[in-house]
């Protein structure tokens, strides 16, 4: 086997391998919508996060604008503190309404943002003023039964 031919094929092999990794990152994975460096953090206190998981999407008008970075329990307010890692391309007003929603009947839970009308924008590390907890099916059924009993 000629050296140059062998070198050529090894070059093709390495390029194809790196190309495959790039395709995996860009086309299959979420590297295109994944700005690692330029993101900012927003905090939200929720009374109940239901089944929200870390890495769950943050959506506004259905568009993914960030991801859930961290979930903690606060001993000061006795509720859940959710840290959102937001894409820095998107800014939201101070009075943005954050709620935990479910995509579809059995889908995953995500954080939905409904922008308000405030002129000032939320800065890195700030908190949402208005939040809405996740719907818990048991509570809903309980309330429904309670109302039913009260009505009769």
């Amino acid at each position, binding site marked *: 086997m000629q050296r140059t031919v*062998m070198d050529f094929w090894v070059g093709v092999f390495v390029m194809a391998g790196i190309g495959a990794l790039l395709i995996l990152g860009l086309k299959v994975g979420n590297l295109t919508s994944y700005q690692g460096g330029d993101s900012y953090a927003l905090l939200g206190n929720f009374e109940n996060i239901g089944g929200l998981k870390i890495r769950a999407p943050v959506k506004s008008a259905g568009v993914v604008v960030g991801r859930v970075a961290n979930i903690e329990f606060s001993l000061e307010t006795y509720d859940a503190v959710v840290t959102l890692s937001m894409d820095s391309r998107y800014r939201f007003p101070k009075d943005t309404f954050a709620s935990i929603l479910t995509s579809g009947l059995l889908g995953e839970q995500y954080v939905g943002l409904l922008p308000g009308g405030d002129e000032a924008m939320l800065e890195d590390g700030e908190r949402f003023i208005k939040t809405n907890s996740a719907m818990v099916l048991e509570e809903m059924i309980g309330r429904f039964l309670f109302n039913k009993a009260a009505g009769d």
Partner: protein
Amino acid sequence: MDVILIKQTAAVIQRIGHRTINSIWRLGCASHFILLVLLKSWTSFARPRLITREIYYAGVMSLVIILVSGLFVGLVLGLQGYETLQKFGSESAVGTLVALSLVRELGPVVAGLLFASRAGSAMTAEIGLMKATEQLSAMGMMAVDPVARVVAPKFWAGVFSMPLLAAMFSVMGVFGGYLVTVVVIGVDEGSFWSQMQNAVDFRYDIVNGVIKSCCFGVVITAIAVFEGFDAPPTAEGVSMATTRTVVTSSLAILGLDFVLTAFMFRGVA
């Protein structure tokens, strides 16, 4: 009567003990050998041409079987995934299914199994035959270290080729899944890609898959070069060593895959 029974039991226990000591001894030999390879690999880094040659034989020559099997695994995954998912009306999630199962598990594992039987056995056979025909001793006579000249380049070529092959396998699989579900069956192309991109995380899924394939590359080539170097210098010995390479590295891949999966994917990010 009792004496015979006791003697027989003792013989059985003795055999178990002998086997255990033997296998631990071999494991020690193998670790020692791999350490030696690592210590002597500076020669092959100083002469990258040696590694290039081995990448050609280990990587480029495995390309056809890796690409074809990747394509067919993807085709079958697409068909079967569609078959099951359409019962729940969520056939657009088939892209997620194909991509996640390939990137996380099937890509590294199946590519590793193929690599072990295609390239690992060739490495063992080559080193074993060089030993049987006393080429390795001849090198030693000429003050050329056979571990540095023959074994280390093969080791590094395998370690380098394996992640690239696994990535190509996954890409071909995703392409196969795309072909059968979007082009043939007619699942919506937009939701196929967007659901896939929503579900596959770069750091969590793809990087973990690449780490897995790197681990498999190290294990496969380490077993292959050790078995070759350790083979009895006869035709039978080389053939047995080749068989042992394929069996041992396949079992090692499957076992290691479970351990790595248990550490990487535990449902918590």
